[in-house]
């Protein structure tokens, strides 16, 4: 019996009788991180990292949450479950399952670059490795984040000299916190969309030291917003809500911005290929570091990535899950419903 089965409700461990990131309500759900395609509503019990708990409370309401620290195993019918940093967003974890000496690891979403705010990714040795492959093509090769931050700052200065506000489109959980520090370094005030602001205060009260942002309310005057910096989720893009910042320029922060067509399609003034996922090299490094005999690639370019691994001599297969949405942005469709409901 395999340690994890790919069921129609999500990744299932029959021996321990629990699910990981299920997309349908179950009795016991281990949650890798707080993004809405991984942490869904309706399960009876949730297991997650301490840092993810406040995020789930904000997004899913009060439920039975059990939270643990890094590498603190929980046992379910002899199966050991432990969490290791995935470096994707605050609290994001890889889920390690061990039974009778056999180890499986599910990455959730992850990146190998240390962003300074999410606990840095740690490779975990295992027999079977289930990895995301959102950006599993060699065209995705990220620049170091400091270089991108520099570009973002320069963009703000250019906009300012043209009398424009700078609106950054960033996912309210993860990207929004990641870009805060470099944006704050410009010394200009930063305003946040409601969805971003809610997450911000939740994380601040959970003890995260984040630079201050201002909430935009009906009282915020046009004068205050002149040439300001704004962080907003993709749902706000092109909406009447944006009008108050006029004149402004929009910059989208997403790995998808690596390809020009996506920037143009979004009618964005700038695209910053800043991703919370691994790039091609990151995925390859991670796979090799696990020493796994068998790899499953999921959400993203799973067929390409697994084919490539097989060519390298690493046995790999692809799995269809309902995470991400095939080849789609973390900012798009799947999450848009949730983002909207936050407004």
């Amino acid at each position, binding site marked *: 019996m395999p340690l994890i089965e790919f069921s129609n409700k999500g990744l299932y461990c029959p021996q321990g009788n629990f699910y990981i990131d299920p997309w349908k309500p179950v009795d016991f759900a281990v949650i890798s991180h707080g993004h809405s395609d991984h942490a869904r509503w309706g399960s009876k019990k949730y297991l997650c990292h301490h840092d993810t708990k406040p995020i789930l409370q904000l997004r899913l309401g009060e439920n039975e949450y059990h939270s643990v620290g890094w590498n603190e195993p929980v046992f379910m019918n002899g199966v050991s479950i432990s969490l290791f940093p995935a470096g994707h967003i605050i609290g994001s974890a890889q889920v390690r399952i061990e039974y009778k000496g056999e180890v499986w690891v599910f990455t959730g979403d992850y990146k190998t670059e240390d962003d300074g705010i999410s606990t840095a990714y740690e490779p975990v040795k295992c027999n079977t490795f289930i990895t995301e492959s959102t950006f599993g*093509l*060699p*065209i*995705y*090769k990220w620049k170091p984040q400091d270089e991108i931050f520099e570009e973002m700052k320069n963009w703000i200065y250019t906009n300012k000299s043209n009398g424009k506000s700078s609106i950054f489109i960033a996912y309210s959980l993860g990207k929004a916190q990641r870009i805060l520090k470099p944006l704050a370094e410009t010394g200009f005030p930063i305003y946040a969309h409601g969805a971003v602001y809610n997450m911000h205060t939740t994380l601040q009260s959970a003890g995260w030291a984040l630079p201050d942002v201002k909430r935009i309310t009906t009282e915020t005057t046009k004068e205050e917003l002149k040439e300001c910096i704004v962080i907003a989720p993709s749902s706000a893009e092109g909406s009447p809500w944006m009008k108050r910042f006029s004149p402004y320029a929009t910059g989208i922060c997403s790995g*998808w911005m*690596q*390809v*020009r*067509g*996506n*920037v*143009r*399609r979004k*009618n*964005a*003034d*700038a*695209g910053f290929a800043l991703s919370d996922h691994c790039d091609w090299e990151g995925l390859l490094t991670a796979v090799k570091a696990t020493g796994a005999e068998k790899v499953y690639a999921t959400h993203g*370019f799973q067929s*390409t990535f697994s*084919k*490539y691994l097989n*060519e390298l001599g690493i046995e790999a297969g692809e799995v269809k899950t309902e995470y991400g*949405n*095939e*080849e*789609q942005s973390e900012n798009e*469709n799947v999450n848009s419903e949730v983002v909207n409901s936050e407004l």
Partner: protein
Amino acid sequence: MKRFAELIMKLATTTKTNAKLEAIRAYFSEATSEDKIWVIALFTGRRPKRSVNSALLRASCMQAANIDPWLFEECYHTVGDLAETISLLIPESDIDTKDVVEYSLSHYMNLLRNIGKEDDDVKALFVSEAWTQMNRSEIFVFNKLMTGGFRIGVSQKLMVNAIAKTTDVSPSIIAHRIMGDWNPATISFDELMSTEHSAADDSKPYPFYLAYAIENEVSELGNEDEWQAEWKWDGIRGQIIKRNDELFVWSRGEELMTDKFPEYKILQELLPNGTAIDGEIISLATPSEEGNFAPLPFSALQTRIGRKNITSKQLKEAPVGFIAYDIIEENAKDIRMISMLERRKKLEEIISKINVPILHLSPIINFNNWEELINVRKQSRDKGSEGIMLKRKNSEYKDGRKRGDWWKWKIDPLTIDAVMIYAQKGSGRRSNLYTDYTFAVKDGDNLVTFAKAYSGLTDKEFAQVDNFVKRNSIEKFGPVRTVKPELVFELAFEGIAESKRHKSGVALRFPRMSRWRKDKKPEDINTLDDLKMMLKIFNEQYSSKVSE
């Protein structure tokens, strides 16, 4: 090259005309004369012949990036653009680009002009070395210069206005000077802008005056007496010019097409020197006499363009004539500023004097009031035309697309309901998004494909269809997905012709999605018999005209 790449990137990331104008202006105020002339050439479609083919670029890239062909293809289908795919795959150079000699745009353009003669090995070496000296956007732009199909989103009008801002010459004069037959490798910027050069180029056409589609009720144009109505013919807009005993035929796309239409040869003798006539290059059924002609569908003309040598069979099956709309040069004098009524008089004189069966005057439609014209327009298709042109009688001949004096008033397109069965990812701003669809009609229990379309939906609708395709694809053939036949669209098109190449036996002209028929199920779509009936009716309209 860096400055040029920056310009291209700036142009690509803004949709605002003023920002584009400013970017080009800034570039022109700094660039060398050699670079300027190349930018004008590139932005007006005067690209050197493709010298390095895409197979060689692919191979060089795969070698540099150390990847296999299948993986390269996966990347290409996701990016949707060869030049960009390569720019993303080439490993970042080890050389510190700051220390590399910065080569100019003209440097590379001159090399590209001559590389065509060299062996593939030499070409591959040239390309891979150039890549190591460039950053990502430079590689992208450089590849674009080699592969062609470079849509920069800069209209001729925009560029003309930008040049006008850096020189003291008015936009309409610049628009005229940059037309015609000139070579960026042999002419300098100042020469091109000079009056001497303009006078020296006998072939130089005038910028075409283009009409916007009429937006409101035709009656809002005001007094009927001020307007002249003509049929809108469906050929290729062109200019016939005779200067210094030589004849030149230009298409609106600024392509010199003199040799493609031997029928016009006779005009070399008959037209007076210093004449430029604007009109429609169009296939006409023979025999046609003066004042009486019968246009053939555009598909007939299509057999003539894009061929190097015209066979006598083609000459017989798709003879070409010219329907004259306007005269813009007479006795070597630019007469664009005199009123259209006066120009029309001059045009009528010249054509009746020549009196050859290939040159016709565009007939004027007589009407007393708008009501009447609305009824006349309904006969457009029977006349073999695609609608009506309305021109203000006292209008000048302007340059480019301008509102106010000339309007096109096309007839409603033909439509058919069909189901989408294949989808492919688009390119450019639609990369990684399924936007190119193949449609089928019913034939008994089977579905028969008959048309492809990739325009007409809003971005939001495209996103919805894309989502559908990703969730409902049945099979994958390279970049193409077969999709569950479920989504029904109304396709609009301008014409229908017999085709041996298509399984359905028909080919449509300008098919596009006019409506997403969410109210219809695949059972409700049209049939192959419906299409064949449309073809029959469409052909009868033309043949009835010929027999008249």
